[in-house]
């Protein structure tokens, strides 16, 4: 041990000695929690985790190999998975969910970033706007869905009234009733609800950017556009990518808003995997949970794989240093 280390009160060999110490001595250390105390703290959390997360997940996978009618369980092997492969509605739901999951987060993150930049740039009434833009995050999906169903209403909704007022009445339509616009309409609603959350995260990230770098750019007469493109966005990249991945995971499971606004219609145009699982489990004139469990199991795997893939793609090799 060097003199310096001794002087600093550190002991570089201590960890090695500790690892050699007998097991009993470790527990007799009064600074460490005893095993029963550890149990008191761990057991409730583990019980909740295993009871409410792990067990239902494994049970869902297990159930997917059965047909469950009433109290009867009939093992069917991989039959549910084979049927799923041939299920047209499932593939429509997969397509719609992928559109949600890959496209909608771009809208979410871009909107959040723009709002954050507006606040950072010091738009008038910034304090009021920060609260106003964040408020939708606090609303429940039910409230948001009803609000936007009114906004999209054909006869008296704001969107169509605005179009009519601008002389564009021909563009007025039943936004949620038209298969060509229904999915986009619901995605916009979802983006509206979550824009405030993305805004807050982006704003915090912008405020944590090194001021000297931004001030240096201003000294170099760097305009707003260039500063945004070459400095702010690259430095915010890790935050934006994390927001994208979070939004992606959320949208792979999207249910509430779709269920309330369209129920998956019209003509399955807004059907998502989650709404389809729910329909198969509760709206299909059957008690069979085997098939919906198979959908849920497959989708669990798809979400995990997609998140791993996205993390690999987005993993920056050249970390920014500042």
């Amino acid at each position, binding site marked *: 041990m060097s003199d310096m280390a001794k002087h600093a009160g550190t002991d570089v060999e201590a960890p090695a000695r500790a690892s050699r110490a007998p097991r009993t001595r470790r527990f007799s250390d009064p600074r460490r929690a005893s095993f029963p105390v550890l149990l008191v703290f761990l057991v409730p959390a583990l019980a909740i985790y295993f009871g409410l997360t792990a067990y239902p997940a494994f049970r869902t996978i297990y159930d997917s190999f059965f047909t469950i009618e*009433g109290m009867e369980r009939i093992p069917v092997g991989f039959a549910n998975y084979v049927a799923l492969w041939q299920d047209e509605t499932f593939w429509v739901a997969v397509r719609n969910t992928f559109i949600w999951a890959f496209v909608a987060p771009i809208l979410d993150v871009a909107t959040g970033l723009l709002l954050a930049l507006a606040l950072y740039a010091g738009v008038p009434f910034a304090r009021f706007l920060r609260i106003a833009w964040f408020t939708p995050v606090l609303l429940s999906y039910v409230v948001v869905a009803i609000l936007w169903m009114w906004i999209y209403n054909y006869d008296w909704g704001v969107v169509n009234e605005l179009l009519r007022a601008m002389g564009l009445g021909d563009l007025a339509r039943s936004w949620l*009733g038209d298969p060509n616009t229904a999915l986009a309409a619901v995605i916009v609603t979802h983006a509206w609800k979550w824009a405030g959350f993305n805004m807050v995260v982006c704003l915090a990230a912008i405020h944590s950017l090194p001021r000297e770098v931004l001030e240096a750019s201003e000294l170099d007469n760097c305009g707003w556009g260039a500063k945004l493109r070459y400095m702010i966005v690259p430095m915010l990249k890790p935050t934006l990518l994390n927001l994208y991945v979070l939004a992606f995971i959320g949208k792979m499971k999207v249910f509430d808003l779709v269920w309330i606004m369209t129920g998956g*219609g*019209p*003509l399955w145009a807004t059907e998502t995997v989650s709404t389809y699982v729910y329909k198969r489990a509760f*709206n299909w*004139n059957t008690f069979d949970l085997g098939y919906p469990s198979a959908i849920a199991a497959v989708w669990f795997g798809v979400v995990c794989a997609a998140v791993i893939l996205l993390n690999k793609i987005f993993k920056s090799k050249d970390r920014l240093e500042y």
Partner: protein
Amino acid sequence: MSVKACLKAAVFLAAMAGSAHAQTQITMWSNWPDEPAKKDWVTARVQEFEAANKQCSVKLNFIPKADIYTQAKSAVRTGQAPDIFYMEPDQPEFLAGGFLEPLDSYIDLAGLEDWAKPAWTSKGKVYGVPVEAYTVELYYNKDQVKKVGIDVPASAQLTQAQFTDLVKKGVAAGITPISQGVGDRPFPGALLTYEALLRRLGTDDYGKLLAGELSYKDPRVAEVMGWVKELVDAGAYPKSFATLKLGESHYYFYQKPGALTFPDPSWFTGRAFAAPESGGMPKDFPLGIMQFPAMDKGDCPNCKTLAVAGSFVLYSKSKNKDCAGALLKSMANVENGTKWMEQVSLQTGLKSDPAKIKSPHEAYFKELTARNADVKYFFGTPLFHYRAKCAETFTQVMNNAFPAGLISVADAADKMDAACLKK
């Protein structure tokens, strides 16, 4: 206090607790939280039962139908379902799963209409008390229909051409011809199409269509669907059809903006006869009931759909079957059937005594009775017959996309055959 006094007090408290335990509490889930007349009828029956059966108390909850089904599906499996719950015959999985108790030994079956029993009969046993029954009717605004130049004949039935004329004249006058929306229901958009199909095909072939034994490409079916498509393209339905909810379509018909007709099951009264300030029909509304149009070359112009809807069933794993069965028994009699007709102004699967019905809506009842005189009933709506993927396709295609003009006759027929036709 002496030891003796303490003991006396303890004995008294124990006795009180014992008597409290002697009372059995049963739980009951009913639909109709937003339909005052039906809610009042159920509440009154429960209160009467509790007054007459002190050993039983009832914890009654009014829950929307969709929520009852969802909750009951989970609850029956875990033994936690209510003793009595609301159910309609289009949910056969509860019966098939063995979750319903046969009622033959609990209720007096003579209190049920003979035509209503089959809806709940399986292997010779009756499993539900069919409180609510209905026919599919075509309500109309007498003044508006007259205003656009259509005279409804004494038979109250227009021909196919006359109905087309009514729709076109309504559109020309800026009045929506048919108030209808599918925002929260899986069936209303298909009412006109299927009543027309029933009149064109007759009960036998219509039954085959709903059993998946007749193709939607049958020329007669194609003709009817072609006619409905003509009406749709002419602007028969509101532009907000896809999102308009059932309650809103009532308001659309008799308040704002108003419509010529409103196809609806006869449970129409549950909302229409509520107070106007609660969204009910204005007192002076010129309501009429006409028959659905007689189709060209139709096999059965006087056919009509009759169905059983809201019923109460007994959970097979109930631990309080005596009290629950006694409650259902107390409901299923002529007196209560008559009260239902009086209060709700709707048909019932309970037997009733028409001579004793005293209702402020007597004129309505007379007209409804007249529209149901000499008709030939077909039992059950499409969703009563369709299951699983076929039911889902019906909801998406025939209830929603086809009457919304989103899909052609050929495409709709293809999708329905793919989902429903037995190979």
